[in-house]
């Protein structure tokens, strides 16, 4: 038998989202809900209780007309890897049940629903609000339970869930690779549902460590930034925007900090 360890290069799956291209259409959110059996309620007006693994936020520059500018920002789980990629992301470090884990091989933060007992420490720890609590058992409209994906396990009430970068697609891609006698997968074989659903191609997904993957170049753009970088969460979701106010909105700067940071960032 071959050893899995030695012939696998460490990957860091991540995203680069071009905010200049995002129109805020919400296709990614729909694709995500459908792909991952995300439960919903009849009345989704109370956003605090609704579950959105991927959520599109609407930002504005806070200026009055005619200087108002709008930017849409899709926010999946940021899959923090921490300083030096040690993998102790905010949520992983606080979970008392080992229900959330970090895989050193893929850089994906996992959530095992059957292990979770719903203490919600991880929700409190997450600076990005990517984690959601199931207040109720999912109720699917009649007949819809038949169209649920068997590749993603369905959650019950009392557990936390979040974006997995469609990890089941990685598993299926590996299945095919093994069948074809390979141990590595190509960039196009593992793509998240939101990436493929985006009509303006603003989301790019791949291995941030692999120079052959498109994200490798894209993340080095001078216009690239990450959310709350100053927390040293070392997230794997990069955003690109040509607008400075958008890049600044990625971190919680104080008013007078703005110019300083802008200078430091170049």
């Amino acid at each position: 038998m071959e050893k899995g360890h030695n012939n696998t290069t460490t990957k860091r799956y991540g995203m680069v989202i071009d905010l200049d291209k995002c129109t805020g259409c919400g296709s990614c959110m729909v694709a995500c809900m459908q792909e991952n059996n995300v439960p919903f309620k009849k009345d989704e007006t109370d956003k605090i209780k609704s579950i959105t693994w991927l959520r599109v936020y609407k930002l504005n520059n806070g200026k009055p007309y005619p200087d108002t500018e709008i930017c849409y920002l899709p926010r999946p789980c940021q899959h923090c890897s921490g300083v030096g990629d040690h993998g102790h992301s905010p949520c992983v470090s606080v979970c008392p049940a080992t229900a959330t884990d970090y895989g050193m091989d893929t850089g994906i933060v996992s959530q095992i629903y059957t292990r979770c007992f719903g203490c919600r420490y991880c929700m409190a720890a997450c600076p990005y609000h990517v984690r959601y609590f199931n207040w109720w058992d999912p109720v699917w409209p009649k007949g819809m339970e038949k169209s649920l994906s068997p590749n993603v396990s369905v959650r019950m009430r009392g557990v936390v869930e979040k974006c997995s970068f469609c990890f089941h697609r990685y598993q299926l891609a590996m299945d095919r690779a093994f069948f074809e006698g390979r141990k590595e997968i190509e960039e196009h074989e593992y793509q998240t549902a939101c990436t493929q659903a985006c009509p303006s191609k603003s989301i790019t997904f791949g291995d941030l460590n692999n120079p052959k993957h498109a994200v490798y170049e894209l993340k080095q753009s001078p216009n690239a930034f990450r959310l709350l970088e100053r927390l040293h969460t070392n997230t794997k979701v990069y955003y690109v925007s040509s607008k400075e106010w958008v890049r600044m909105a990625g971190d919680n700067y104080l008013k007078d900090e703005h110019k300083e940071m802008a200078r430091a960032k170049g």
Partner: protein
Amino acid sequence: MSASEEKAKEVSAEAAGHGADTSKEQNTTGIVFIFFVVGLAASLLAGWIVFPKVLYSQKQQPFDFNHQSHMEMVDNGCQSCHFFREDGTFSGAPKLAQCIDCHEYVQGGSEDETIFVEQYVANYHEVPWLIYAKQPPCVFFSHAAHVNGAGMDCGTCHGDIGNSTSLPVYEYNVITSYSRNIWGKNIAGFKKNTWDRMKMDDCSECHQKNDVKQYSVQTEKGACFVCHK
């Protein structure tokens, strides 16, 4: 009665009392011992025989199936019925499509075949096979990784079912509804063969031995997102 007489009586009564005490003690020890033995036997009986009976319930497969006789008839070995699809997923329990070439009409005289042909083939109803190896819904298992990647035999995890002449009895846990094959037939959880059990520990044990994706930050063993979905 004289005083001496009284004294003598007392003494004899005392002696008698004493004698009665010892024999009573012997009696109680005997009773305690018997109770202990009976209680132990009852507990063992309950734990080893009644408990598994209560915990596990049986279900009948729709009809019996003979692997051995079919292996003599098919051209392509196990793959005639259990094969990989082009995308690397495993077909699992066979569908009617794998049987229909031979079973459009009843061929032999067995009752099982008659049930199969009349109730399923004739109506194009897929057979609702009960899966002995079925894992809980949160588990991801890849046949390609083990059969193609690691070159393992079916028998390593399933035992000798491929050469069997009849399907085993299907048992499931009445609380979790999981197949008994996950925990194993032995109620104490002992295993002699690799296929006796297939709990998380059994997967992990082999994965640790073979250094399969031991990348978890939390446990420094197998990452949860290898076997879970």
